[in-house]
C-alpha cells in the first residue's frame, strides 16, 4: 500500500505544474459572508479592497484556528465552504457540537466525521503498534481525504500525533490538490499560512445566577505567513440564534441596539424574577 500515490490530481483543479490558467475564484474556497471583511485583503496578489475581487480561503493553504473560540471559528469556515457545495471532513474531533455546527450554517449532508486514526491505540496496545504504523495510517487517511475533499478540519491532538515531516508532506499534497487544512488548537510544529486567533471578548446573557448564554463577542485576529498585514475583525460567534453574525448587522436587526451596560439583564417573559427571590433569600 503506497501512502502517497503519484500521478495527476483527480480534483477539479490542477495547480502546481499545470500551464492552464486558473481563475482567481477557482483558487479560492468560499467563506461565510461575515468573514469577508477579514479575508478581503489577505489573498496575496489580489490584495485590492475592491468589492469585485473574489474573497475566500486560498486553496492549498493551512489555516490554524486558535484562541478560546477556536472551534466555533473553524465551524464558521466549514459553514461557508459546505454551503457552496464543497465537501468537508472533520478528523479526530468526536466531541464536536453538531447542533452548534448546523446553527452556524454547516451543511451536514456534505460533512463527514472521521474518528482519530489513532483512536484505538489503547485497545490495540497488545499489538504493539509502532509509531511508524501510526504515521503510515495517519498519512494514508489524511492524503486520501486531501485527494477528494476540499476542507479538512483536524484536531490538534491528531496533528500532534503526526510527525513534522509527514505534516509538511501533507501540506504539500494539499497545495497540489487544492484542499485547505484547518487545524483546531495551537499546534506545536505547523507552519501556518494563516493563523486565526479567536479571542472571546465577552459572553452576554449570563448574570450571577440568572439568564442564559445568549451571544458572544469574538475578536478574530488574522496573521500568519500568507497574511501580509495582520488584521482583526469583531463578530458575534455565536449570536442569539447560534449563527455567525457581524456586529453591525446584529445591532440593526435586533430590537434593542447593542448596549454593553445592558448586557446581563435578561427579562423573564412573565415579568417575574425567581432568581431575585433566590438571591434575596
Amino acid at each position, binding site marked *: 500500500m503506497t501512502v502517497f500515490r503519484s500521478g495527476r490530481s483527480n480534483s477539479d483543479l490542477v495547480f502546481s505544474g499545470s500551464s492552464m490558467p486558473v481563475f482567481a475564484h477557482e483558487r479560492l474556497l468560499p467563506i461565510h459572508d461575515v468573514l469577508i471583511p477579514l479575508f478581503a485583503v489577505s489573498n496575496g496578489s489580489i490584495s485590492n479592497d475592491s468589492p469585485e475581487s473574489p474573497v475566500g480561503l486560498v486553496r492549498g493553504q493551512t489555516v490554524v484556528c486558535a484562541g478560546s473560540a477556536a472551534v466555533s471559528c473553524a465551524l464558521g469556515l466549514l459553514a461557508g465552504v459546505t454551503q457552496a457545495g464543497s465537501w468537508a471532513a472533520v478528523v479526530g474531533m468526536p466531541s464536536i457540537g453538531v447542533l452548534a455546527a448546523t*446553527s452556524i450554517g454547516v451543511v451536514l449532508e456534505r460533512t463527514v*466525521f472521521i474518528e482519530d486514526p489513532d483512536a484505538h491505540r489503547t485497545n490495540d496496545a497488545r499489538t504493539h503498534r509502532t509509531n511508524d504504523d501510526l504515521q503510515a495510517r495517519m498519512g494514508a487517511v489524511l492524503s486520501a481525504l486531501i485527494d*477528494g475533499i476540499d476542507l479538512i478540519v483536524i484536531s490538534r491532538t491528531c496533528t500532534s500525533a503526526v510527525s513534522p515531516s509527514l505534516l509538511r508532506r501533507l501540506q504539500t499534497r494539499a497545495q497540489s490538490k487544492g484542499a485547505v487544512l484547518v487545524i483546531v488548537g495551537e499546534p506545536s510544529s505547523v507552519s501556518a499560512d494563516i493563523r486565526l486567533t479567536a479571542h472571546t471578548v465577552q459572553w452576554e446573557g449570563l448574570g450571577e445566577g440568572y439568564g442564559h448564554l445568549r451571544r458572544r463577542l469574538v475578536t478574530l485576529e488574522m496573521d500568519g505567513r500568507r497574511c501580509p498585514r495582520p488584521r482583526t475583525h469583531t463578530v458575534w460567534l455565536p449570536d442569539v440564534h447560534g449563527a455567525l453574525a457581524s456586529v453591525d448587522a446584529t445591532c440593526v436587526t435586533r430590537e434593542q441596539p447593542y448596549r454593553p451596560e445592558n448586557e446581563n439583564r435578561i427579562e423573564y417573559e412573565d415579568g417575574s424574577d425567581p432568581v431575585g427571590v433566590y438571591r434575596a433569600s
Partner: protein
Amino acid sequence: MAAIPLACIAPVEHAHNHEHQIMNTSSLIRCAVVHSPAWSLIAAVLHGRFGRGPDVDPEEPLAILRAQRVAVCSPLAWQHGVRPGQRRRQAQGACPHLVIVPDDPERDIRWFEPVARSIGDLVPLVDLETPGSILLATRGPSRYVGGDAALAVRLEELAAQGVAGIGRSGPSSPGVSDDVVGVGGGFGVGIADGRLASTLAARASARRKEPVIIDPGAAATSAFLAPHPVRVLATVAGCPPDLVDLLERLGLRRLGDVAALSPEHLFDRFAAVGIAVHRLAAGTDDAAPNAVAPPADLSVVQMFEDSVVLVDPLIFAAKRLVDEMSTSLSDRACVCTRLLVEAETDHAESSQRVWYRAEGMDSGAMLDRIRWQLDGWINGSRPPTAGVVFIRLTPTQVRRDSGVQEGFWGGRSRADENAARAVTRVIGLLGPESVTVASWQGGRDPRQVYRLVPFTERESHDSGVHDSGVHDSGVHDSGVRASGASRATAPPWPGSLPLPAPALVLHDPEEVSVLDVDGGSVSVDGRGLVSAAPAVLIRNGQPHRITAWAGPWPVDERWWETRARRSARFQVVIEGSDGPRAHLVEVTAGAWWSTADYS
C-alpha cells in the same frame, strides 16, 4: 357526424374506450433485437486485425474484465470453465492460458457501426442500447420480407454480412472469416412484443443458435417472461437495483411471481413503481418506471454555415447542444432514456441513430453516444462525401428523475464524486464504523440532538428503496431531505438548552469541582435549590474564577424506568488564561461534570 343523435354517440364512445383498453393491454410495439453476447471480444479481434489495437487471437480463450470480474468470455473460455462473474484469479485458475482483453466501450461501438449500418439498409431507424445489441420495430420490415421468421433470418444474415464486410476492400479479398463472429458467440435474433421480451428472446436465441420468435399477444409474452429471474428488470428494463433486491428478498425471484401478484397489492407497497413493475413482468407494458411523455420542445438543433468535415468541431458544437438540453431536462426533473441523434451533410446524406440507456443519460453519456455515432460515420468505411451542416438531438423518451438511484450522493458534481471516492478509501483504511455522518434524532441534551451514524449505513438508508423509502420513490425525495423534514416538523423538546448550542459536547464528561466563595463544595438539594453561589471551578487541577453563572436547571429523565437520571445543569463563564470561557456543567449525585464547552 353532426347528424348522429346524441344517444348513439355514447355507446360508440364506450365501445371505442373498451377497445382502447384492450389495445392498451397488448399494444406493445413488436420489436426485433439483434444481439451478440460477447460483442466486445469481436470488436477487440477486429480492432487488432484492421485497426490499431493489439493483436487478439480468436483461437485462444478470451475474456474481458469489468470491475475486477469477468464480464464476457468467449465460447472457448466457457468450455474451459470460465464464467461471467468470476474474479480474475478464479478465471485463470479454471483456464491458465486465458487471455484477458482490455475493456474499451469506444472500440466496441466503433466496430459495431458497420453492423448497425448493414441492418440500417433494411430498416432506416434502429435503436442502439449497448454495442452488440440493436433494437428495431418489426411492423414494416416484417411485412416487407414476409413474416417474422423470414425477418429473423434476414437480420442474422445482415449482421453477419456487416461483420464480414469489415476490412473487405474489394469483392475478391477474403474479409472477415466466421471464426471472428464465433468469438462473440454469433448473433442472436429475438422477435417479441416489447423491448424487454425481445431483448430476452435475443439472448436466448444467441444461446440456442436459432432465432427465437415469441407469438404476439399478452398471453404468449407473459408466458415467455415468467421463468426469467427478476434481476433482468434491473439489467434490461432499467428498474432501480435496490428495488429488485427488495423484490428478491420478498421471495419474488421470477418475473412470473411478480406477475402473479395483484397490481393493487404492488401499488399498496410500492406506489406507481409497483404498477410499472407488474406491467413489465406481465408483459403488458415495457415503458420504464416513471416514464413520462417527452416535452415537445426539447429537440435542439445546430446548423453550420460552413460544413464541418472533422469530428472534433462537431463534438464541440454538440457539447453545447447537450448542455442546453440537459439543463432544460433537469429543469423539468426529467432524465433522457432514449435519444435520437441526427446529422446531415451538404449532399443530404444523413446518419440517424436512436440511443437507448435504461438508467438514463447524463450529459456526458449523451456526448459519448454522439461521438460514437459521428466517429463511426465520418471515419468509418463508407464516409459521407461532404461536411456536416446540421445536427439535431431529440429526446424521444424521458423518465422522471426521481433521484432514487442517486442515493446519498444526490448531487452530480465532480466534488461529490471525488468526495465519495475519498470517503470510500478512508472507510477501507479505518473500517466502516469510523466514518460517520450526523443524523438528527432530537433530545434535551446537546449530546443527543444529533447522532453520528456510520456513513455506510446512512448511504444504504438513503438509497430510498428500502421499506420506508419506496412508497414515494416517484416523488423527488431522498433520505437526507427526509431527515431534514423530520427535524422541521418534529415537536419541540421542552427542557432542552436554549440556543446557542455548545461547540464541543463531551461524550465522556470531564470531572470538575465547583466551590463557593468559602471553598465549600456547591450542591443542589432535592428541591432544586443551590447551596451557595458557585465561585470557583476547578478543572484539571486549575482553579478558575466563575464570573457569571445560571442554574440549576433540573433534568429529571426516565424517572419511570431503571435508567432514571436526575441532574442539574449550570452554565458558567469562567476566567481562562485567554479570556472568558463558557462551560456547561452538570451535577449528578453530588459530583460535578463538565459536559460541554462553548469553545
